[in-house]
């Protein structure tokens, strides 16, 4: 509730005000003491005058009267004295300035004045403190203006304790977020440009071939049936490739742009993997490869079945491509407290360390690329799909021993 006392601003004010009040209390104490001495003196003088006059007339009364001066009076005597004095208007309601003893002290005024005068340093302290506070407010508004101008270079001080510190922190976080969004916008632009250039680059080659084939077919009516057929077949190959490219690129673009709506439902992970393995049975047999799936009978996952299968197909396909004939591809389904893992291990040539960080980049071809026709879009697409559904993919590899791709999904993923 009183958390604000942590603020250095409050601490500073509090210390100064307390110090000032202490000063005031001490000086008032001494001042009042001094004043009381004056009143005491006046009182003694008054009593002395009274006694002097009274006893000059009747010295015999001294013994009786002195007691009232030195030891204090008794009630009935006070009452009697009051009755007599009242006849002269000398009562307890007598105005202080009419009271001869107190006439020259002006104690109330002399007390009130310094207290009043004391507001000056108090005000100065408050002024000084507020000045500091407002200076900070001004810094914030300057910083806000800078952010409006897209200048993020100078953050607000956030090292302090207290509310200004946390305001600074939140402000900086806000500015960070803003600059991050701007950066992301920039990145998306770059991505689009790169995508366009990738697509055009990838499509240009088959297109050029097609154009050449068509030119030949059109301009060479005497072309033998055999040759024509070859050309047409080549054209079909190029068209197939283009179709595949376009589909993949579109998929990839849609996935990466977040334009896919994943229809998530609860799946048995094993079913998905089995289905993937089934669909790749033919090429695997073609290469005499064994596909071994282990574990995961119990594992359930929230995901879009089709897309997930797509991602795994790409990964397994990649493994197929890199596996030597007669090898084995292991697909392990595992779980731990937090994650469901699918590990895909091949016995291929492995990935050199310098390539490792890049293999998920679109169209990336390692230096020792053995398969010229692979365009390096599958892994990238898989990664996009998996990450799009809240999973992640990592790879580890040992050159000569093969690679392991590991797909992990957070259990009960958000």
């Amino acid at each position, binding site marked *: 509730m009183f958390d604000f006392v942590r603020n250095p601003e409050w601490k500073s004010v509090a210390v100064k005000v307390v110090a000032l009040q202490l000063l005031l209390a001490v000086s008032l104490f001494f001042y009042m003491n001094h004043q009381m001495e004056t009143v005491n003196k006046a009182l003694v003088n008054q009593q002395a005058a009274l006694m002097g006059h009274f006893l000059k007339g009747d010295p015999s009364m001294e*013994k009786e009267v*002195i007691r009232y001066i*030195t*030891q204090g009076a008794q009630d009935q005597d006070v009452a009697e004295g009051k009755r007599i004095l009242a006849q002269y208007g000398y009562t307890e309601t007598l105005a202080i300035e009419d009271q001869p003893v107190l006439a020259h002290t002006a104690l109330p005024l002399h007390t009130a004045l310094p207290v009043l005068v004391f507001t000056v340093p108090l005000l100065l302290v408050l002024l000084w403190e507020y000045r500091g506070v407002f200076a900070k407010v001004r810094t914030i508004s300057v910083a806000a203006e800078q952010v409006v101008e897209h200048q993020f270079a100078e953050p607000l001080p956030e090292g302090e304790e207290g509310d200004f510190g946390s305001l600074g922190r939140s402000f900086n976080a806000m500015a960070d977020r803003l600059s991050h969004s701007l950066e992301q916008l920039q990145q998306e632009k770059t991505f689009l440009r790169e995508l366009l250039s990738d697509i055009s680059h990838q499509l240009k080659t088959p297109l050029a071939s097609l154009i050449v084939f068509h030119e030949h077919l059109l301009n060479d009516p005497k072309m033998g049936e055999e040759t024509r057929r070859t050309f047409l077949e080549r054209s079909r190959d190029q068209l197939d490739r283009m179709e595949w490219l376009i589909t993949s690129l579109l998929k990839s673009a849609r996935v990466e742009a977040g334009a896919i709506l994943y229809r998530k439902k609860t799946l048995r992970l094993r079913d998905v993997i089995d289905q993937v393995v089934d669909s790749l049975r033919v090429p695997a047999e073609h290469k005499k490869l064994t596909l071994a799936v282990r574990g995961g009978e119990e594992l359930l996952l929230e995901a879009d079945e089709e897309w997930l299968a797509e991602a795994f197909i790409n990964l397994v396909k990649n493994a197929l491509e890199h596996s030597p004939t007669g090898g084995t591809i292991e697909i392990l389904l595992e779980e731990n407290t937090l994650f469901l893992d699918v590990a895909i291990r091949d016995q291929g040539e492995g990935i050199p360390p310098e390539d490792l960080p890049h293999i998920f980049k679109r169209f990336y071809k390692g230096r020792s690329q053995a398969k010229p026709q692979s365009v390096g879009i599958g892994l990238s697409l898989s990664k996009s799909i998996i990450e799009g559904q809240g999973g992640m993919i990592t790879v580890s590899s040992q050159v000569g021993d093969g690679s392991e791709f590991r797909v992990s999904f957070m259990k009960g993923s958000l």
Partner: protein
Amino acid sequence: MMNRYTQLTGKYIRGQKKRSILTIFGIILSVTLLTSVATIGMSYRDKVIRQTVQSFGDYHVSFNGMEGDAVANIQQQAAVQAAGVISREGYAVIQKTSEKERSENPFASAYRYLNVKGYDEEAMRMLQVQVEEGRLPQASDEIILSSWGLSSFATKPKLGDRVSLTLGIRKVASTGEIRPISGMGDFGWGVDEAFEGQTKREFTVVGFMKPASNQSWSSSFIYPAITFNDHKTIDKNRTYFVYVQMKSLDRIKDKTESILTSLHLQSTEQGSALELNRESTVKSVRVEYNNELLKLYGKSTYGSVNASTSLAFAAIVVIILLSTIAVIYNTFHISVLERMSQFGILRCIGATPAQIRKIVMREAVLLSVFGIPIGLLLGTLFMKALFYSISFLSLGFLNDMRMVVSPLVLLGAAALGFITVIFSATGPARQAASVTPLEAVKSTGTTKVEPVTSVKKSDWVKWIFGIEGQFARRNLQRNKRRFRITAFSMIISLVLLIVFSGLVDLLRQQASQSGIRYSYSLQYEGSSKQIDPTVFEEIVKLDAVKQAYPFSNEQVMAIIPKDKVNPTYYELMSDMFVVETEQGYRMSNNFLQSFGENGLDDLKPKLTSGAIDKEQMNRKNGVILIQKISMMTESGKRLILDQTHFQVGDEIQIRTMNGNGQGYQTVTVMGIADQGPLSTGYSESAVLGMVTTPEVMAKISGSDAYSRIFIQAKSDQPDDSILNYLQTLVQKDAGYNYMDRVSELLQAKNDAMTASIFFYGFIGVIILIAFLNIINTVSTNLILRTKEFAVLKAIGMTQRDVSKMILLEGLFYGLFSGISGILIGAALSYGIQFLYQNTLDTAWGIPWTSMGLALFGALFTTFLATMLPMRRLNRVPIVQALRAEE
């Protein structure tokens, strides 16, 4: 649910229950100690004030022998709160001394007088006038008489009787001059007495006065009587005594002197008041300060006494505070050291040093919140129990001690305890805050082995204790900080013990001022000055009598060799050493005493050196010398010192005063005692006492007669059979005179018992604190090193080797701390005594006993503190210990 980081403190407290309980225990003990000390102090002061009021009167300053004019002036002074006035109304003769008595007692007065004094109400209150029966006088025709003088009246007055008295003045019969009267006139008569009656007054007897406990002998001829006199009208011819309570006690001397100035009595003699009803020679005009009472308010007119009292008290409080600070600091320090790596973690995850400090300080605050109320409660309960047992002892006594539970004391103890805890926690908190985050990431365990830079070869240790001993010694050298903490804590405990037992001794000496060990004394003042031995035999035969001592006392001249005189004493009393002879000073204030056969037996346990062998004493003129006295100097300082430095075997030349022709004889000092056989306090008069056998007494004085018998009754209560016997004796022969000191004896006994309970209770608490503190530190030290010991076992030391090493380590700790502790303790105890010397000065002796006990206790406790955790350590399997992380 945790909402702020400071709640971590509470978690720590709950998480480390054992350590927290130990810390709370330390706090509780400290606060208990503070509360107890303060309560004892307050109650003791309360008791002493009441006692002092009882025996010295409840006034601050008295103006004696004032003229009538001055009375009203003093009463009405602005500085005066209340004033009681006493006047001497006059003497009345109640009996003419019989011829028979006068012949038997050559010092007897011609008359027995009644000394009638007029008190006003205030005076009766201030001078503690109390009646045994009836009530105090309230009118000028009412009178109270002294109960012990009633039998001297022609007809013994009863309550309500009218007595008619002729008041008058006493004169010297031979010259006819008015006899000068000293003070209030209750004391002093001459052989040459005449009386002149002046006025005849009638009084109603309304009560009988209690005899004062310190009644003097001379009251057998002058009996006080008190009537009421409001002193509204002042008789200019009378002398007045005005007892005054001031409005404030500050600068009481200045105020009194300004009163004197206004009375034109600037050069009046001033001094300290004696006990009430003590015989004193007061000159006509004298001002007396009730310094015994003023001293208790710290306002004595002797500046040095005030300063000394408050200084010594402050020193005690400071020592208590320092030791509690040490104890609490220690527990905190250990608990912080244990958690160093955790504070490092906190620093790693971004706690600022200030936050760490706050966590530790909060721990201190929280523990205080638990500990202080319990400490206050325990301290109060502890005191309640103590007071209960005391009230049980002195049942039915007026002078018992009442427990003063002052909120101020509780508040003060709580505040002091709190400040102590905060103060103690500051250092460890700062240390915790200064931990670098690196410490957390680098070492995970708490056992940080400091680099060994130099290890002294200690061949002797190896030679005596073997390799384990060397190991133990190196362990101490290796971790200097831990060694310092542990040793420091033990040293503090020992210092506390020695200082307090020294203090208790000091207080005991001061408290044991009055002390008699007999119930009745019978004296014969008849012409023969000799009690018939049959009387002694009859007394011994009485069932109620436990012991009787025939007492003979002979004042003797003695030659004291110059080198035997205590130089300090010589400085103080140089005017006593005036007659120089060749062999030394000739002194006359020496008494050769014999308490009969059994008197010497009673002296045996009091001997400080020498031995009592009656046969040898008879042969060699042996005496037991009592040379220690307690005296008050002019500056109000109490000294307890030896007058001379005689030793066993020394010979002293003495000769009787009436010198029955024998000249000097030689006596041999065969033993030294501090107190006489029938006294429990030091002698207060500057006399050298020589106790000897009746035979030696007879040899030297030439007579085996005795004129006094001390009687020790079996019971503490007044006994009629003894009293009856003594009374019949007095009736038979007026030369007999007896004193009843039963009540005084009982009171002295109770006082001694009370003192013992207090002192031993106190020492008990101190020992408990010291003991726990040592146990705590030493065992923590060991438990912290569980892992280290496991390592040693893992590399092949046997259980026995490790145990031996640990025990030896404990032994070294005990030796080191024990020796340092007792040295520092002795030094401090000397310091306290030094501070006290303006109120009470006794020769400081090295406290061998408590030092020895402390050293032995330290070794024993370390042994115990080592054994306990070692058994636990031995049970832990090596592997588990190795893995252990705090």
